[in-house]
């Protein structure tokens, strides 16, 4: 099937819509996460979401969002807002929660295999690497994604200057009267929402790639916060579209194809950055 016909298919259109929106959200938040040394939070939270998903499957919830979203939000809040003063420091607590949730999730799936599913490792693989889930989205999932992404983008625009202030210098922002705790809390909630959204797109393991690559690529070349943010968003959306389309052409897994596209862009941008700085 050629590309033009392929794009006509409703499920491909759904995948493109959700893909563009989710990668836009991950890129926007990625800039602040990378700069605050929280690159791995996406990874950690996605494993939490994976754990919650298996619990939902074991309990037999039809709509696992009801469980997955709140659990991920709580963990994000714990990691981002409490984590900075806690005795277990940022990266260690992320590693702890991430691996813990992954192990418990897998254990639960094996102990209580969800009824009607015999292929556990196939299920796990899909949750971790995305598989084809983005091509099998149900209409209500598409609607939820659109609404949540719109909320995230609006949040980002509305709080853009505050996010910049706390990312660049949280102590200064706090000392001069900005409500840093509130903004950190909101940011944690939004990040959790984005991670849960991105699970369907690239799967649990590859979410970090969507978070870090566009931001890092943009930082190779651009020198202001605004230009880095805008560039990261453009890179991310472009790579996602390219990834989804070439996955269809070459019959490769969608998630990893998108990430490879991001890696290629990173390499190109690094090269350009290296040349222009000389």
């Amino acid at each position: 099937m050629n590309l033009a016909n392929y794009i006509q298919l409703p499920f491909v259109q759904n995948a493109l819509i959700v893909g563009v929106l989710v990668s836009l959200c991950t890129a926007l938040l990625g800039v602040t996460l990378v700069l605050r040394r929280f690159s791995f939070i996406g990874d950690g939270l996605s494993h939490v979401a994976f754990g919650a998903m298996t619990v939902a499957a074991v309990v037999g919830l039809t709509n696992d969002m009801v469980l997955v979203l709140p659990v991920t939000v709580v963990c994000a809040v714990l990691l981002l807002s409490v984590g900075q003063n806690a005795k277990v420091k940022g990266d260690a607590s992320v590693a702890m929660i991430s691996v813990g949730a992954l192990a418990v999730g897998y254990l639960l799936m094996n102990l209580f295999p969800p009824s009607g599913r015999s292929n556990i490792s196939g299920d796990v693989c899909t949750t971790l690497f995305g598989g084809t889930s983005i091509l099998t989205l149900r209409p209500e999932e598409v609607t939820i994604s659109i609404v949540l992404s719109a909320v995230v983008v609006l949040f980002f625009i509305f709080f853009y200057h505050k996010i910049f202030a706390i990312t660049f210098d949280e102590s200064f922002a706090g000392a001069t009267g900005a409500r840093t705790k509130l903004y950190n809390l909101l940011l944690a909630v939004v990040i959790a929402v984005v991670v849960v959204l991105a699970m369907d797109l690239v799967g649990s393991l590859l979410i970090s790639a969507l978070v870090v690559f566009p931001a890092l690529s943009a930082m190779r070349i651009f020198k202001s916060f605004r230009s880095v943010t805008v560039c990261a968003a453009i890179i991310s959306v472009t790579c996602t579209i390219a990834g989804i389309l070439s996955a269809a052409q070459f019959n490769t897994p969608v998630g990893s194809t998108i990430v490879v596209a991001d890696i290629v862009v990173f390499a190109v941008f690094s090269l350009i950055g290296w040349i222009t700085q000389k």
Partner: protein
Amino acid sequence: MALLTCEDLSLGYEGKPILEHVSFRVEAGDYLCIVGENGSGKSTLIKTILGLRRPLHGKIYAGDRPSGTGGGKLPPSKRLKRSEIGYLPQQTVVQRDFPASVLEIVRSGCQGRQGLRPFYSKADKQLAMENIRRMGLEKLVKRCYRDLSGGQQQRVLLARALCATRRLLLLDEPVSGLDPRVTAEMYQLISDLNRKEGVTIIMVSHDLGAALQYATHILHVGAHVWFGTRDDYLQSKVGSSFLKQGGMPE
């Protein structure tokens, strides 16, 4: 009348005090230097004054002591507000490779007054430009922070702090890592703000020479806490022994 009064503060971590019985007053127009050995709790004191940490014990008042012996109380409208404090923190690792333009950083100094307003007003933008000019950064407005020299970076952060306040500026080791010439420029800049523009300064420094050259008051922290004017400090036991340790001429 005092801008800030601290009474019998004890500071520390997890209930263990590292600094005790600190009392001092800062009047409008003062230049207070906080000196003391490394690890004596200077930066912790600054963070406590800023409200980023809670003291273990004691009180910080905006203005004079509210009642009793401390004299008159400022009407609420004249009291120092959180959003009227400017702060020049020590640089963090995060900032060293941060992609941000000078303009973006200086404007973020206005953030404390923003509340939930999403964008900067015209007045905010004008104030930012004014402070950029005051710090002589006009030509660097579009430049990236990480590409600037250490002295330029400090001036950017000072411009940002001035966007937050015209009343009280807290500086935490503002010259660390700067070469002698730039250090002298920085001290001159701070001194001008204090003398010509009436900005009250509280500065943490381990550079005793500069502290004694510019400050009007000294707060010495450590095992013995001492507070008073610069001249009294030079005569005091704490002051003269600290000077000898530091190998400074008396």
